[in-house]
């Protein structure tokens, strides 16, 4: 939550409270306000405004030892349910932390900021602020569900562990091959075969380390792009040629159709990493006899690339996640070389560094489609 949002809401609320009271005073002066009704007859416009706030807003009114929730917006309802208001503060929140905070805020007459973690790994960011108005007073709560952010932080912490694991797996493989090699030096044919395996493992690991380095640089914004005007068709042609051997080995054909007159501004080496990773996936996940189609389009502003395969596609609910670092759908499915789940993370970062974006979808006729959009200027 940004401070500006917080400040604005606070200001809105104060203005609204004041307006409300003013209206209340003017309209019905002879009837004393009911003791624990909402402090103000709230104008619809600000109720609507507060209800659209992505932040839970709860107004607690204090009278002697009793504190009651007199207002809660829609976001609050999503977190705390819908007790009938006004409700005692404990009945409303059902967690003593809120009452502790409210008491502390009243005692110190100063705001407090705290984090609370409850069941099911849910974390709330709580700001409690004192309010006073015409002899009435209480505490305002702004509560935000920050579970997502907290989980993301934890993921970052786990990154180091992941890295170790990803590097360890190929290393363990190499170690086994080396040990076998030591025992087969008198058998040149087997030895040659093992050396070939070792070469492949080393290539895979080199690619992994390169990708990781590029990812680290690009994430910290330290990877400068050298943009060069390049023909889209040339880039694709070059890549298809480079990947064709791999594809043929798997019995997969690659076809492409790209207009000749489309130039784009790219860093060739980096963009090569994007295409390599997307095509590598397409080949990896497409069964023998399948086909990969690359289709290029251009208009004045953007260039589009659709890469469509005839593989199993991607489960829809996982579509938003496949660009996450280290995310792979199913370890068993990622056979063959690589398979550490950073290919698409890197691809997305590079495409975005170019000012473009990359999306994944499933084609109606089956298979995955990756769409890369790049601005042409």
């Amino acid at each position, binding site marked *: 939550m940004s401070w500006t949002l917080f400040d604005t809401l606070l200001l809105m609320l104060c203005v609204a409270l004041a307006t409300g009271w003013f209206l209340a005073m003017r309209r019905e002066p002879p009837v004393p306000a009911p*003791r624990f009704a909402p402090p103000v007859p709230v104008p619809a416009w600000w109720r609507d405004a507060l209800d659209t706030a992505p932040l839970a807003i709860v107004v607690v009114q204090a*009278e*002697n*030892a*009793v*504190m009651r929730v007199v207002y809660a917006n829609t976001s609050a309802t999503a977190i705390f349910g819908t007790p009938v208001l006004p409700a*005692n*503060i*404990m*009945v409303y929140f*059902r*967690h*003593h932390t809120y*009452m502790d905070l409210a008491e502390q805020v009243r005692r110190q007459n100063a705001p407090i900021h705290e984090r609370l973690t409850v069941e099911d790994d849910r974390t709330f960011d709580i700001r409690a602020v004192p309010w006073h108005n015409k002899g009435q007073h209480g505490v305002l709560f702004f509560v935000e569900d920050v579970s997502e952010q907290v989980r993301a932080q934890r993921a970052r912490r786990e990154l180091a562990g992941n890295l170790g694991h990803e590097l360890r797996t190929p290393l363990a493989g190499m170690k086994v091959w080396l040990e076998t090699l030591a025992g087969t030096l008198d058998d040149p044919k087997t030895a040659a075969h093992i050396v070939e395996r070792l070469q492949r493992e080393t290539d895979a690991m080199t690619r992994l380390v390169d990708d990781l380095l590029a990812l680290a640089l690009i994430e910290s914004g330290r990877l400068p792009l050298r943009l060069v005007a390049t023909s889209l068709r040339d880039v694709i042609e070059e890549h298809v040629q480079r990947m064709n051997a791999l594809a043929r080995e798997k019995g997969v054909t690659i076809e492409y159709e790209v207009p000749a007159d489309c130039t784009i501004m790219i860093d060739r080496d980096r963009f090569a990493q994007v295409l390599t990773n997307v095509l590598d996936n397409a080949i990896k996940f497409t069964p023998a006899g399948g086909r990969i189609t690359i289709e290029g389009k251009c208009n004045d502003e953007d260039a589009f690339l659709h890469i469509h395969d005839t593989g199993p596609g991607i489960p829809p609910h996982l579509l938003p996640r496949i660009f996450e670092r280290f995310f792979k759908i199913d370890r068993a499915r990622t056979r063959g070389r690589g398979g550490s789940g950073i290919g698409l993370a890197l691809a997305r970062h590079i495409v975005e560094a170019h000012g473009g974006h990359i999306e994944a979808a499933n084609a109606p006729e089956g298979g995955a489609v990756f769409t890369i959009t790049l601005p042409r200027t």
Partner: protein
Amino acid sequence: MDIRQEFKHKLESLVGDVLRLGSMVDVAIQKAVTALVEDDISLAQQVVAEDEHLNRLRYYIEEHSAALIATQQPLARDLRTIIAAMYLATNLERMGDHAAGVARLVQRLHDTPYPRDLLPSFEQMAQIGREMLRGALDAFINHDEQAARQIGLRDDELDDLYNALVQRLIREIAQQPEYAQGITYLLWVAHNLERIGDRVTNICERTIYMVSGELVEFVDDIGESSFLE
């Protein structure tokens, strides 16, 4: 402020304090079991230290109740609520003691080997106990006699789990005598968790009485005296 209003406020704040104590106990149980499962000594220490807050709030509730009765001459129904609040506070505070008891055992278990695959059963017991506790407090504030009866019956579930666990622990001691000490501590942990269910049952009985004036007993209280409190 008129007298009746003032009394209502005081009664509401009394009930609020009972809920607050309940929430503190809930968190204490959760922390104690987390400390057990994660072998987290400092969390266990925290639970033991915080038990003092629970005790203090309990006495505060008792005094507050006594003052209300003495100075306000409450009507019959309000009187029942006040007495129920006192009774709940006592039981909640004792549940807190059980949580602290678990936490103390976690400290001992830290240097004692035991088979860790036994732990999920304890998590499950604590989970049921906490669900019962929350349900019982809901029934209390909503004056929901029906719900109170339902929760009272859930104690059987907890007892079954407890009995199965005790048998399993005893079997483990026979099979792996080298773990005897650790498993004995676990027996005490289980006992503490089982007692929590009994306390919740007490709360439910009291709620039923508060609402209907009817006296019920869910459990024949033989476990009370037996062992290791």
